C-alpha cells in the first residue's frame, strides 16, 4: 500500500500509461543492486530513488577523488577523501527518506557477487572492469535474475537487458575482456548520465511491466553524432556460463 505522502510524491508518474497505483506499488516493493555508483551507476541510483524503488543495494569501494567530480553526481566536493557509498547514502536519503538502502564499501567480485545478487530482484551493471561484469553475469545467470547491462566510453554508450534463459548473457557476447580496454577512460558526465537514465528506465519497465525492455537487443549510441542503433543479439550455444 502507498502512504498519503507517497501518492503525492509519485502522482505525476502514476499518470503515465500503464503505471497507476499498482505500478507504483510494484516499484515500492522492488529491490535493485547497482554495481558501482560512479558516473553511470550513481545516476541510475538517483533516478531509481526518485521513481520510488523501495530498496537499493549499492556496491562501490573507495573514497571520493577530485577526478570523480565531473560525473559522479551523488558525490560532492566536501566529501573528497571520504567514503563514496556513505556520501551517496546521505545524498539519496536526503532526496528520498523512505528509501531502504544498503551500502557495501566493496566492489563486486567472484567472492561476493552471489551474495549481493541474492538480496535483490534486479541488477544494474555499471562496473568499469570486465572482471566485475563477468562475476555479476555468472551470478545473475545462476540465480535467474534480470540484469541491465550498461556502459559508456568517451561519447559512446551501450545498453542491453539480460534475461537469463531467454537472451544472450554477457559471456555469450564476449567471453573475455577486449584486449584494448583500459581501466581509465575519457568521460563526460552527460554521456554517463544519458546511459544511466536509459538504464534506470529499463529497470522501471522490468518492474512495472510497461513497454518493451531491450532484451535480446543492444542499443548503441554515439553522442558525438547523435547516432543510435538497435542491434540484434543471439545466444551463443557454446557459452560456458549460460549453457
Amino acid at each position, binding site marked *: 500500500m502507498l502512504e498519503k505522502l507517497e501518492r503525492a510524491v509519485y502522482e505525476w508518474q502514476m499518470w503515465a500509461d500503464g503505471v497507476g497505483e499498482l505500478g507504483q506499488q510494484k516499484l515500492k516493493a522492488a529491490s535493485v543492486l547497482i*554495481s*558501482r555508483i*560512479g*558516473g*553511470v*551507476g550513481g545516476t541510475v541510483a538517483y533516478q531509481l530513488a526518485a521513481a520510488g524503488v523501495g530498496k537499493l543495494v549499492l556496491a562501490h569501494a573507495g573514497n571520493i577523488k577530485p577526478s570523480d567530480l565531473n560525473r559522479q553526481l551523488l558525490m560532492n566536493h566536501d566529501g573528497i577523501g571520504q567514503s563514496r557509498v556513505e556520501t551517496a547514502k546521505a545524498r539519496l536519503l536526503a532526496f528520498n527518506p523512505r528509501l531502504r538502502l544498503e551500502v557495501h564499501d566493496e566492489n563486486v567480485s567472484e567472492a561476493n557477487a552471489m551474495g549481493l545478487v541474492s538480496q535483490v530482484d534486479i541488477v544494474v551493471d*555499471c*562496473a*568499469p*572492469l*570486465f572482471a566485475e*561484469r563477468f562475476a555479476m553475469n555468472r551470478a545473475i545467470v545462476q540465480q535467474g535474475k534480470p540484469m541491465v547491462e*550498461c*556502459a*559508456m*566510453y568517451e561519447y*559512446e554508450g*551501450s545498453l542491453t537487458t539480460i534475461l537469463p534463459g531467454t537472451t*544472450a548473457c*554477457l559471456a555469450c*557476447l*564476449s*567471453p*573475455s*575482456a*577486449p*584486449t*584494448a*580496454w583500459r581501466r581509465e*577512460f575519457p*568521460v563526460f558526465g552527460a554521456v*554517463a548520465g544519458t546511459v544511466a537514465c536509459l538504464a534506470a528506465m529499463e529497470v522501471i519497465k522490468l518492474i512495472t511491466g510497461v513497454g518493451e525492455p531491450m532484451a535480446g537487443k*543492444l542499443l*548503441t549510441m554515439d553522442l558525438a553524432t547523435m547516432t543510435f*542503433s*538497435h*542491434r*540484434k*543479439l*543471439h545466444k*551463443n*550455444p*557454446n557459452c560456458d556460463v549460460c549453457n
Partner: protein
Amino acid sequence: MKIRVRFDSQVRRLAACKEVSLEVDEAATLEQIIQRVAFEGTEPLRAALLDNERRLRTSILVFLNNDLVTKDRPFVLHDGAELTLTTLISGG
C-alpha cells in the same frame, strides 16, 4: 560484390578510420574477410582483431546488417551488406 566494413567503438580507434569498402566474392567467408581487413589495416587493428594463431578474437563482436553473427547461424552476404566490427565497452 561490394560490402562496407564499419569499425565501431574501440575498434574504430585502432583502425584509425570509420569504415572501409571491400570488393568480395559472394562465397567469401567471415574468416576471409576478417583476415583481409586485419592485414590491410593498421598494426593495432590487426592485434585487436586476431590472436596469435590469426583467429578472430572472441571479444570482437561482428554484426551483419545490425544482426550479431554467431557460428551456429548462416553467414550470407549480399551486395551492399554492412559488416560492423566492435567490442563491448565497460565505462561506468
